[in-house]
């Protein structure tokens, strides 16, 4: 067991982890932050995306011990301070960017990483950025639309194809 300390959604957290403990299991099993989902556990689906030091990371493909000293943010830290949905989350709701919601935590975290780096992306850039996020329900169009709307761009011309 190794002792790890990291900041998660602004709060300092410590725990004992085995060498093979994944960041996803540290979050979900030890800290009960179950908003981060495990869809595949094989680096394909992106449901488990969190931010580590500001960058999107598949938490099923990083060891908890590697996050020593890191700033981690998860879906639980995304809402506004008063508990209302943030701009991206609200846009997913407004534009029906989710159906079952399983992929949504990873989609929102990946979108947040994109908009931080590129505040006004094109539709193509949004689609490219979602390369590692799989959704089995929506067919993606409304997810793309929600992210475009969250970036403050007019989405009236983006039809559901």
């Amino acid at each position: 067991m190794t002792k790890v300390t990291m900041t998660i959604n602004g709060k300092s957290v410590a725990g004992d982890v085995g060498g093979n403990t994944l960041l996803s299991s540290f979050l979900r099993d030890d800290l009960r932050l179950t908003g981060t989902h495990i869809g595949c556990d094989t680096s394909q689906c992106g449901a488990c995306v969190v931010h580590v030091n500001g960058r999107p990371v598949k938490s099923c493909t990083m060891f908890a011990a590697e996050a020593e000293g890191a700033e981690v943010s998860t879906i639980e830290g995304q809402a506004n301070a008063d508990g209302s949905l943030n701009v991206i989350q609200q846009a997913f709701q407004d534009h029906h960017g989710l159906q079952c919601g399983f992929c949504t935590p990873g989609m929102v975290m990946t979108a947040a990483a994109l908009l931080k780096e590129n505040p006004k992306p094109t539709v193509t850039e949004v689609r490219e950025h979602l390369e590692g996020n799989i959704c089995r329900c929506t067919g993606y169009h409304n997810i793309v639309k929600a992210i475009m709307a969250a970036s403050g761009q007019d989405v009236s011309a983006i039809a559901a194809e």
Partner: protein
Amino acid sequence: MYAFDIERPATIGEAVSALTGEAMVLSGGQTLIPTLKSRLADPGKLVSLSGIGEMKGIGLSGRDLQIGGGTVHADVAADGSYKALSELASNIGDPAVRSRGTIGGSIANNDPAACYPAAALASGAIIVTNTREIAADDYFQGMFETALNEGEIVTAVKFPIPDAANYQKFVQPASRFALVGVFVAKYADGVRVAVTGASNEGVHRWTAAEEALTANFSVSALEGLSVSADNLISDLHGSPEYRAHLIKVMTGRAVTAAS
């Protein structure tokens, strides 16, 4: 996964001394963690490179770009001093893979469909390890095979920046690796062409195209050439003949994009 410990040394020296017995190097983990999950390795101990500051970062001196082995794909993508290389890095996998995966891990692993080996071979790069410098031509030795010895660490890769270059990747959409990828680099003393994704021998040079393009750097120089399907990869994504065809098409596109 089998049980193992993780050590996080702060220097290359400490990492080398920690690599004893069955211990394995962990870099970005984007290849190694899936391998460990499938129980294809039982290392007992992982020696992580992620805390080694001297292995991260990108330095330009004259026309030589040196990239630390622990530098993640996202940082190479953002750099831009060797445009074709940054473009290649920006198309590896997806954003989350690029946040963690490193150039040293990719070069050490030498997956037959990986992107960086094509860039290193086409650029005549130097692979720098904790003990020596190895020319790319001697370094890549077949599928997943390299000149690295047990416990040797890729600490940096040095790229001479070409006059013109481009990488064309025909994406295998399920894995996001290259079904066929071709890197073309034009230097004052000649053109180099490296092919990934296609061969049972791993990354390799296409010397006939190099000669033709050195004489005349244009797509028309490729017209008379054909690629043999012998020893090319056959899988459900493509036959050897299909890959042979793609090598020529991708080379042509790379030449067009570079010139």
